[in-house]
């Protein structure tokens, strides 16, 4: 348990640093991926919705430190992503290769939508725009593409699943 927490913390810190330093330069159509969200999706897929939600909360909170939006907004969005992904993935064919990218896409859509809607509710009215819809859509595709690439390392950090086999063929770990 302690080793798992240490591994996940290491992955989380590394991804947040990459998000803040490297990925502002690697935008596609002006949109950067959300590495914390991608990792949350994988953690939830591997070790369940409650732990996915906790990891999402930590990842979101770390990213919130570098954003202009209120602290806690990304944390809330990624908690929801972790929980929803963990819950949904239980009903999916876990060995299929297409599952992680699909969950990345779904997580991006859910996370982006929650972020925008809650943001508007707490006074970030500028988030209510067509551009936000475009950002969420492009960001979700970007997240989906990155999910298989991050899968081996995040799955390693999350450790073995407690229930049935959860490693889809081809993504390692």
């Amino acid at each position, binding site marked *: 348990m302690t080793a798992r927490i240490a591994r996940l913390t290491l992955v989380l810190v590394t991804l947040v640093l990459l998000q803040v*330093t490297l990925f502002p330069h690697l935008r596609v159509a002006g949109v950067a991926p959300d590495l914390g969200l991608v990792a949350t999706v994988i953690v939830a897929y591997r070790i369940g919705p409650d732990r996915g939600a906790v990891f999402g*909360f930590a990842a979101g909170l770390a990213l919130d430190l570098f954003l202009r939006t209120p*602290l*806690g907004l990304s944390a*809330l969005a990624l908690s929801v992503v972790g929980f929803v992904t963990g819950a949904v993935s239980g009903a999916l064919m876990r060995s299929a290769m297409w599952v992680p990218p699909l969950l990345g896409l779904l997580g991006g859509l859910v996370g982006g939508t929650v972020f925008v809607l809650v943001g508007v509710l707490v006074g970030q009215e500028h988030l209510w725009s067509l551009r936000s819809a475009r*950002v969420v859509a492009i960001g979700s595709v970007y997240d989906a593409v990155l999910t298989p690439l991050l899968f081996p390392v995040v799955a390693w950090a999350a450790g073995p699943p407690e229930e049935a086999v959860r490693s889809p063929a081809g993504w390692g770990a």
Partner: protein
Amino acid sequence: MTAFRRGTRRRSVVLLLLVTSITLITLDQRGGDSGVIGEVRDRARDVVAPMQRVVDDAFSPIDDWIDGARRGAEIERENRRLREELSEARGRAASGAAARRDVAALRKLAGLTFVPGEVETVVAQVVGATPGNFEFTVEIDRGSTSGVRSGMPVVAGDGLVGRVDRVYRHRSTVLLITDPSSGVGVRLADSGVPGVAQGRAGRTELALEFVDPTTDVEEGELVVTSGLEGSAFPPGIPVARVSSVSGSDRALEKRVLLRPLVDFPSTSLVKVLLWSPPGAQP
């Protein structure tokens, strides 16, 4: 029974996380940058800033190359236009002193109390862009220890960059004029007609709003900060040029778009004007 307990635990965990998130959002909204949250943000940015700078330096030539390849034709046109402007400017230079006297007199006549030349400035380096997708900000390496305060105007060689948003000890976040939550009080340099240059979500151009539809607006016309009473910016800072005008005089609204003078992605050095609107809290 076990499944029931697990379900209850999951719901409790998620509920606890949601309540904690909402509490943090509320505390941050109410507390601003002071207190524990501001302190934690300050420390986190201090830790990451050197790494941001290293990555920025490494990516700068690549970004320039991509930008140049994408905007090759535009840069060529810009080059031609600048050469023409340079030759015109040389001709006008002789009468510059007289024009400055005229401007000073006009400022007095208009009742403007502020002259930008008297304002102290702090040079700052841009150390990073936002990691987020829903805001248009940059981070600079000057903060409250250099006298920077929230709301202060930030300029580059070509004109207005934005205003200081969040201030930490050694860092500040600058809200660019292209951010959708940014609105700058401006006036058309030729006609003097006031308006608001509003950031547009995801667009590099600004919208000029609250302009009288009967106003004659020409493409290429310079737009500067208005400096009207209560404005967040001193008067006369170049902001943008009119890039397109649509809508007839009879229309209820004229659609005027502005192209900012500052090329934000390639801006690495800025100046913070240590200025606050007259009457504002220091």
